[in-house]
């Protein structure tokens, strides 16, 4: 195969674009897709202070690199989840990237600062660890952004993430979640703006971007996420994509252009009715303890031995 742009030998083919690219033109294509997503959804305005949620995986490190490459300064935030060797390696990859690129990295350690970790939280709540992990991330990314006066929290959610979440939300008709599933969530009282600049790029493209750019990311999958429902949806969607290239992009972009508006009114109304958490002040539906403070209270009561994943 030859590169669609310069006709040099290609190193990656993208069936949904019916195209292949050489390394240089592929990284150019990734930068253009991110610029287009940011412009199309007005994710980041000139002068905005941007905080990137960085996990040490391919998507978040690629996002941090891409923002840097297109001239958008951004600081990073790494959350120590306490998932044994997996978290150790993820933290090392994140710190190494920040140091090599001279970028500022904030770090929050769940165990040190909040008295629990993800394995312990799963144990305490008798729920899947990914639920406690997602809740902790959403709360703390927002909290750190507000504390340090960032205008925008950027996450590495890609096209595959959006397609899998959309499939799950549709299968269960989660109308509230459907109303909030969009590439940008505007800032409201108690919430920083949330943006997803990678929504036009697949996770295969993000892994390829890291290989080409020499970004040393955490390749191993999180041991707590293995076999979860979200990954199952991704596997099914990839089978569909292989048979019919472009299916994932059509599913997601069609929802944003023709489906999302039907659900957004309900979620906007829910957001307007929020009350401050009695402990941390974060917006919550109950006006009592928010979900994060409830999780923290239950998880931090667990004996330390139960919270150790090593």
């Amino acid at each position, binding site marked *: 195969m030859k590169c669609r742009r310069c006709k040099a030998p290609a*190193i*990656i083919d993208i*069936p949904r674009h019916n195209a292949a690219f050489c390394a240089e033109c592929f990284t150019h294509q990734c930068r253009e897709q991110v610029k287009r997503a940011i412009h199309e959804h007005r994710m980041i305005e000139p002068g905005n202070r941007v905080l990137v949620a960085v996990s040490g995986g*391919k998507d978040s490190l690629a996002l941090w690199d891409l923002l840097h490459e297109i001239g958008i300064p951004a600081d990073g935030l790494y959350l120590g989840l306490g998932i044994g060797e997996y978290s150790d390696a993820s933290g090392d990859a994140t710190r190494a990237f920040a140091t090599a690129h001279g970028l500022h990295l904030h770090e929050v350690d769940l165990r040190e600062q909040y008295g629990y970790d993800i394995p312990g939280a799963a144990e305490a709540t008798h729920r899947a660890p990914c639920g406690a992990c997602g809740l902790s991330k959403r709360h703390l990314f927002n909290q750190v952004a507000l504390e340090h006066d960032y205008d925008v929290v950027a996450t590495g959610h890609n096209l595959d993430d959006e397609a899998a*979440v959309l499939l799950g939300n549709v299968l269960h008709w989660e109308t509230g979640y459907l109303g909030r599933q969009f590439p940008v969530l505007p800032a409201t009282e108690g919430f920083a703006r949330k943006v997803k600049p990678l929504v036009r790029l697949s996770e295969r493209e993000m*892994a390829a971007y890291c*290989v080409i750019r020499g970004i040393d990311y955490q*390749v191993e999958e999180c041991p707590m996420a293995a076999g979860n429902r979200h990954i199952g949806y*991704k596997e099914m969607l990839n089978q569909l994509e292989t048979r019919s290239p472009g299916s994932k992009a059509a599913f997601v972009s069609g929802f944003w252009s023709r489906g999302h508006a039907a659900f957004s009114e309900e979620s906007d109304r829910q957001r307007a009715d929020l009350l401050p958490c009695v402990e941390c002040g974060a917006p919550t539906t109950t006006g009592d303890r928010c979900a994060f403070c409830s999780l923290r209270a239950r998880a931090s009561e667990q004996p330390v031995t139960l919270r150790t994943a090593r």
Partner: protein
Amino acid sequence: MIVVLRNPRREVEVPGPMSVSALLTRLEIVPESVLVIRGDTLVTHDARLLDDDHVEIRPVISGGDQ
């Protein structure tokens, strides 16, 4: 050729030459779910892999709850 697979990490030996597409079909791997890396360079699905190549098939699916 030696083919390295991940999650869990293991190696299998597959006789070459064969195309990347044929290798993925033989190993029953969905092309959209992986990158194929020969040595330290990515290769397209039509690339021909030789018997003495060292190949990594790297999964790209990740993530938990949003």
